[in-house]
């Protein structure tokens, strides 16, 4: 079960800088491990994350095998207008997950 968890303030003052916290369940299998019988465990990680605010990309990150399971990413932006934050994670084995959050700017 891949499940994203987003935390943003529901209401915020125009011009204020606020924090966006994201957490997603993912095993982040490095691809560097072997089973007891010597078979390589294929890499299975989230490779990219992005966030857009009313359609405009405000944050993007590439992820690598050294990043721990259940990646937690947090960043800041400035409140400009009410609307939607769209989040997207993509990864190995066709992994793709999205989430949205609404914010009200007063």
């Amino acid at each position, binding site marked *: *079960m891949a499940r994203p968890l987003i935390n943003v303030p529901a209401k915020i003052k125009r011009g204020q800088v606020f924090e966006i*916290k994201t*957490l997603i369940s993912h095993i982040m299998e490095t691809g560097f491990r072997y089973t007891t019988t010597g078979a390589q465990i294929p890499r299975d990680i989230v490779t990219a994350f992005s966030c857009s605010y009313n359609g405009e990309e405000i944050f993007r990150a590439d992820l690598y095998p050294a990043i721990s*399971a259940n990646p*937690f990413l947090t960043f800041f932006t400035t409140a400009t207008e009410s609307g939607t934050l769209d989040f997207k994670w993509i990864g190995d084995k066709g992994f793709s997950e999205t989430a949205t959050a609404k914010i009200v700017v007063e």
Partner: protein
Amino acid sequence: MNRRMSLLRTVVCRAVVSAMTAFAIAGAALGADIPLDKRRSGYADLGRDSKAMQDDDTINPATLWVLDGEALWKEKTGAANRACADCHQDATISMKGVAARYPAFSPARKAPIDLEQRINLCRSEHQQAPPLAYESHDLLALTAYVGRQSRGMAVTPPSDGRLTPFIEAGRKLFTRRIGQIDMSCAQCHDDNWGKKLAGSLIPQAQPTGYPIYRLEWQSLGSLQRRLRNCMTGLRAEAYEYGAPENVNLELFLMWRARGMQVETPAVRP
């Protein structure tokens, strides 16, 4: 298996050997229970970042399991096609305080059962579904969800005389030397807590936060998994998941932690 497991095993084994020597020299007052007011949760010794992670549900990765547990709670399953919620309704009410008094005595088994076993009894008897394996995602999720409903409450082992011999059996296991390292749980967790085992601080082995999100596991894990880890570290053969010995140890640890706060789901290094 965790990617850092083999490395850690080497480190712990080496550390255990040197610790053994160090403790032999230190020769602390042996065999005494920790005074009630000296007990401390592993939380107290977490770093600032790990504390922050446990304190905030939106940062604590264990929340992902709690939410899955909440979804499973409402999901009809098994031949009976019943959900936990069909019988127990709102878990925030019906499951409040339940985890704080497990393991509890099962008249049917004439022995204590832990929370995982209690949940599996409901699956087999009331849902007519196959039991979930220890450490499976779904059992961890349900246990974390049920356990979460007791957070902040005091650990209150049932005052049930039938449990007394099992608590004693748990204490015996806790104080018996085991494995090639030939040490008992108590030698570390009663006599030498607060000291270092290589890089790790030796905690008191308080069971207040389970299931925990352990950074080393990169996952949620049960109390039995944690106990088995320490047994393996002592180069002893760990008791199987669900074995009476593990349940007796869990029971003894909960009795030993009576009155302390439930933290489920906690974060540990």
